[in-house]
């Protein structure tokens, strides 16, 4: 497949891995920010191609994973209202709230639909004028423009039966939160290419400077990730800390200005709670007051207590790269994708689910590594 196969090519990947091995002389800990990157790394067995001196830790960039329990409870409560059609991206459906997931609500009769775009939800609102269509707007900067567009379009069409439950989060504040943690072990970042496609990466210069960490805006295919790692290793080995762009085929320094303008028109920056991490100042988006009529929380008067939390799930530590999924005593036993204790076990972008599906359990890692060693 054009534009994909080139970035999954065996020879190119092996050459890049060889170059990384040649350049690496000291141990380095690198965080890939985005869950999509975690997915590629674990699915393609990429860690095994890297020298043992390089440790990849998985960051908080999984939108499903960081959506707070209280917000999922609100989505479930909204979905259970008889007049509501709740639309959501697919992998949000299985995330447990304090009592139920959206899939559970569906089995109780709630009208929950998977959509691929908020504009599909708009179409549902147009064709079901007697129903209330609520879109569960979750995600980072990547999904914000399309969601802003849906709100803007609905306003223009005066679609009064469309609203949004907004739980948007922003990447740079989360990176700063990870770096500010006293236990932080992260020495460099592979930044999330798709979010930067929208925002550009000018914001990263100050983070890189303040914390002295190199940051490389990176794509999502195996070759992208290895090239990103190589660029970071070169900086780390030379003691540099700058911002570079590996994902030049998609990302420009200033980003997509039209998308940014639409987002700024519809949303405003707000403090937001991150599941597993806690509240991070100025780390989310909410609807501007002009668009309050489309805010599902206001529209349906949703007021729910904050949810009870489990002491067993270590999602917060996993999301900050402080623990590996298999360090959790519940991993693969009490917590599986069918019976998740925490959100990272649900989304395919969640580190726990990726480890579970692709076999990165403690007892598997050694045998997989030896498989890779014998096959080369």
């Amino acid at each position, binding site marked *: 497949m054009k534009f994909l196969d080139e970035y999954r090519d065996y020879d190119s990947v092996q050459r890049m891995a060889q170059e990384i091995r040649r350049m690496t002389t000291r141990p380095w800990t690198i965080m890939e920010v985005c869950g999509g990157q975690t997915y590629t790394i674990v*699915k393609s067995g990429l860690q*095994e191609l890297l020298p043992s001196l390089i440790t990849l830790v998985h960051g908080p960039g999984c939108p499903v994973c960081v959506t707070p329990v209280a917000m999922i409870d609100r989505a479930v409560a909204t979905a259970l209202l008889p007049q509501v059609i709740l639309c959501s991206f*697919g992998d949000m459906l299985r995330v447990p709230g304090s009592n139920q997931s959206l899939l559970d609500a569906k089995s109780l009769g709630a009208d929950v639909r998977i959509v691929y775009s908020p504009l599909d939800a708009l179409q549902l609102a147009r064709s079901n004028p007697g129903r209330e269509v609520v879109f569960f707007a979750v995600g980072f900067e990547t999904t914000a423009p399309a969601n802003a567009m849906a709100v803007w379009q609905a306003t223009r069409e005066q679609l009064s039966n469309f609203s949004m439950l907004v739980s948007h989060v922003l990447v740079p504040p989360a990176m700063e939160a990870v770096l500010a943690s006293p236990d932080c072990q992260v020495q460099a970042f592979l930044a999330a290419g798709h979010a930067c496609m929208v925002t550009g990466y000018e914001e990263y210069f100050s983070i890189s400077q303040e914390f002295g960490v190199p940051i490389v805006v990176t794509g999502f295919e195996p070759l992208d990730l290895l090239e990103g790692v190589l660029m970071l290793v070169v900086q780390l080995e030379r003691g540099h800390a700058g911002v570079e762009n590996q994902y030049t085929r998609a990302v420009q320094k200033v980003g997509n200005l039209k998308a940014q303008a639409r987002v700024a028109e519809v949303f405003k920056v707000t403090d937001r*709670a991150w599941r597993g991490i806690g509240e991070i100042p100025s780390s989310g988006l909410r609807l501007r007051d002009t668009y309050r009529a489309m805010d599902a929380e206001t529209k349906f008067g949703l007021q729910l207590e904050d949810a009870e939390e489990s002491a067993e799930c270590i999602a*917060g530590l996993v999301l900050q790269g402080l623990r590996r999924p298999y360090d959790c005593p519940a991993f693969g036993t009490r917590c599986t994708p069918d019976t998740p204790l925490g959100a990272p076990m649900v989304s395919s*972008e969640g580190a726990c689910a990726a480890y579970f599906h692709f076999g990165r359990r403690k007892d598997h890692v050694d*045998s*997989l590594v030896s498989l890779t060693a014998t096959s080369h």
Partner: protein
Amino acid sequence: MSILSCPLPRPATDRILLAHGGGGRLTNQLIEDIFLPAFSNPALNGRHDGALLAIGGARLAMTTDTYVVQPLVFPGGTIGDLAVNGTVNDLAMCGAQAIALSAGFVLEEGLAMETLRHVVESMRDAALVADVPIVTGDTKVVDKGKGDGIFINTTGVGVIVAPNTIGPESIRAGDVVLVSGDLGAHGIAILSVRQGLEFEGPVCSDTASLWPAVEALLDAGIEIHCLRDLTRGGLSSALNELASINGFRITLDEALIPVSEIVRGACELLGLDPLYVANEGRFAVFLSEKDADRALTILRSISVSEGATQIGMVYDRDHASQRPGIVTLQSRIGGNRVLDMMSGEQLPRIC
């Protein structure tokens, strides 16, 4: 908001979820927790695609399957094609040639007669191609809103032609794993209609009778160890189930697994993995390595399996791992990972 904000453990689900019918882990749980304990008997406990029955001197296979697909008509077939081919194929996977089918219909009040006629005609045509008569049937009608147009159950009886036992228990370390053609077309064809998606070319369901391919192997005297059609849950779930029965390690080479460009593209777009997508005309064959080349030549000469290829090998139980049976996959870039059974439904990703 505390630092650790995850919910309390949930009890095992106390209601049926859609995923219980998805062919993955929850389906297996349902079989193991509810059905096997209630109905336990030697024929059922074999957990093969069909039950093997010895009656008098005859070796028979029997199987049943229920079809609830939406939409009823899709590119490449109808619910009627599936109902005939699916049951014929379950018998073929036991090395049995279908000799008779039954057809039970649950029809929803208000269904257009024309739709029913179309579906029934496609069943007739599929049965003609598979050379099997539909010898008995039943019809029920439910209130509008209590069904989804048409549900069909078919039961099939077949005569076992294979001289040896074809089944999971015959798989040996050193066996090769073949698949009969490219994967994922059926699931993507259905999804493209459901979601109103259009791709650069048409994606048609692969629904077909697999018996001609199995028959050709048997006629040539190939000793088949195990056959499995790759329906719900796709290649991955089928191989995991087989690996877990005997505790083998099955290893696959991702670069060898055939997936068409259109299906790959659709899966990339939709966030799905073609190894978990359903097929209705594809199967996996386990046999000795010495027979592999001859089997491939034979399969490639039959139209339903002309894309046959070798994708992996079976190895002895991995004693280092605590897991009973495992499927591993060498990725295109040369890393290794576990290929797990599907959990829940395949849900599209956010970004």
